[in-house]
């Protein structure tokens, strides 16, 4: 429940008290942003008194009479300039000439309420001002949050690029500073690590490009009939060398063509990410099982590994940008932390979803559902939520 404070400035006591009574305990709901509002009302009998109250604690809505003894309503508008941006000002008037109305609007009045008015009219007017104010505040808050989220995303990207670069520079410094001729094996060690870390940077950059492509919506999606079995086969061939190196068997359980209307490069990213993850997070001599199950309205791809697995808590954090589960088992595995968040965003484009089932030290199964539809989703607005580990 949000509290909105209303200040009524009128020298006629009856008017002031009547209005206060009409608004006392008044509650409203701003449907557009789903916010409940409770009105708290206060009164002032002169512009001078109002000025002091506003300076002490500016109200959200000001109901202001034009004609006041001493300082007029219009004069008051000039004096409260610093507070006006966060306030909605409604001028109360028995008679308003065009000229005074123009001046009032120039000085920040939002609307007019003609005297005499009924309690219902007053409430309707206040309701309108509340709605306007609350929606504007929510919009500002959202814009601010979005800025924060973007800023955080950039910060994490910078950090993720800086870390491997620092490692590479450390090795270069060693090559420059130290005499390694006595132990040439150290050269190989350094070269291996420099290659691994620069590969990691390259992967991060290409993942970032994938992500921005998907989210910007600028890349034209080209929907053609894609054979999912063939795409799985291609991803399999890509990971084969690293799988064989660790004795991991990758079983593709579908050989028959499975046609699906999709963007080829998106399906390629999905299979590449899922199958290479299943190899990366596997144990030596483990296995990977890839199943594609088509039904009338959708196709379900599941990739199961016999790897290190993860806890429920770890699995629940998995799909955010840059989330990498950090523990002794994953320590030596390199990844950008963007792969799964990319897959999730791609699944969304096919009205689908990604699910994960996992058990520590037993394995993990990722299931991605893609729906047949001519009405594919437009890429959603970027909503990066990096979660730091």
């Amino acid at each position, binding site marked *: 429940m949000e509290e909105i404070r209303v200040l009524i400035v009128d020298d006629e006591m009856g008017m002031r008290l009547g209005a206060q009574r009409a608004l006392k305990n008044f509650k409203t709901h701003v449907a557009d942003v789903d916010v409940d509002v409770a009105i708290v009302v206060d009164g002032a009998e002169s512009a001078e008194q109002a000025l002091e109250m506003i300076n002490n604690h500016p109200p959200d809505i000001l109901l202001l009479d034009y004609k006041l003894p001493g300082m007029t309503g219009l004069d008051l508008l000039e004096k409260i300039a610093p507070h006006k941006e966060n306030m909605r000002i409604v001028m109360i008037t028995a008679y308003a000439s065009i000229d005074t109305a123009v001046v009032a609007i120039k000085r920040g009045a939002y609307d007019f309420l003609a005297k005499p008015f009924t309690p219902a009219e007053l409430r309707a007017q206040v309701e309108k001002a509340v709605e306007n104010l609350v929606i504007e505040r929510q919009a500002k808050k959202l814009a601010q949050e979005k800025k924060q989220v973007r800023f955080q995303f950039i910060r994490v990207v910078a*950090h993720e690029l800086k870390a491997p670069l*620092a*490692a590479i520079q*450390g*090795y270069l*410094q*060693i090559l420059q*500073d*130290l*005499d390694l001729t006595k132990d040439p094996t*150290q050269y190989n*060690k350094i070269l291996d*690590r420099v290659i691994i*870390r620069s590969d990691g940077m390259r992967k991060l950059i290409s993942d970032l490009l994938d992500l921005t492509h998907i989210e910007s919506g600028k890349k034209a999606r080209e929907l053609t009939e894609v054979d999912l079995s063939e795409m799985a086969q291609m991803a399999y061939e890509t990971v084969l060398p690293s799988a064989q190196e660790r004795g991991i068997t990758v079983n593709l359980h579908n050989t028959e063509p499975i046609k699906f209307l999709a963007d080829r490069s998106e399906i390629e990213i999905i299979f590449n990410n899922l199958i290479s993850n299943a190899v990366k997070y596997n144990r030596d001599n483990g296995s990977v099982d890839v199943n594609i199950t088509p039904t009338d309205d959708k196709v379900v791809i599941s990739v199961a590994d016999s790897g290190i697995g993860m806890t429920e808590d770890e699995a629940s954090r998995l799909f955010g940008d840059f989330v990498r589960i*950090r*523990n*002794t088992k994953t*320590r*030596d595995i390199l990844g950008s932390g963007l792969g799964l968040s990319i897959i999730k965003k791609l699944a969304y484009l096919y009205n689908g979803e990604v699910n994960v089932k996992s058990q520590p030290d037993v394995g993990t199964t990722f299931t991605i559902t893609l729906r047949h539809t001519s009405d594919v989703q437009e890429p959603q607005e970027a909503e990066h939520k990096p979660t730091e580990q």
Partner: protein
Amino acid sequence: MTESKKTILLIDDDIDFLTQEQMQLEAAGYNVITASSIKEGIETLNNNDFDMAIVDLMLEDADGGFKLCYKIKKKDPSIPVMLVTAVASETGLEFGASTDEERSWIKADKMLTKPVRFEQLKREVKHLLKD
């Protein structure tokens, strides 16, 4: 430098930093033993003699390094321990081992912030080993 090589225990889960630290310190004439997790660190410190330890603060646990410092000091309070941390640069948190209050709860003789310059590391090691 004394005639026999001094041994330094390095505990860090960043493989690259660990490798580079080792290469740099070995080139500077030290004997180096390494561990890359809390568990491995505890085993290594229990089963080996060493003259000094350099421990990363953030291991699998956010404060894994503190625990290891404590265990090293418990084994032998005279062994100098240096804590290396990226905490300050990552979170903006700042603390050191320079005041009595900090030394009362941080069981380390020196704290270095990552990224560590190896020249500085070697200078601090030399200082702590009183070479």
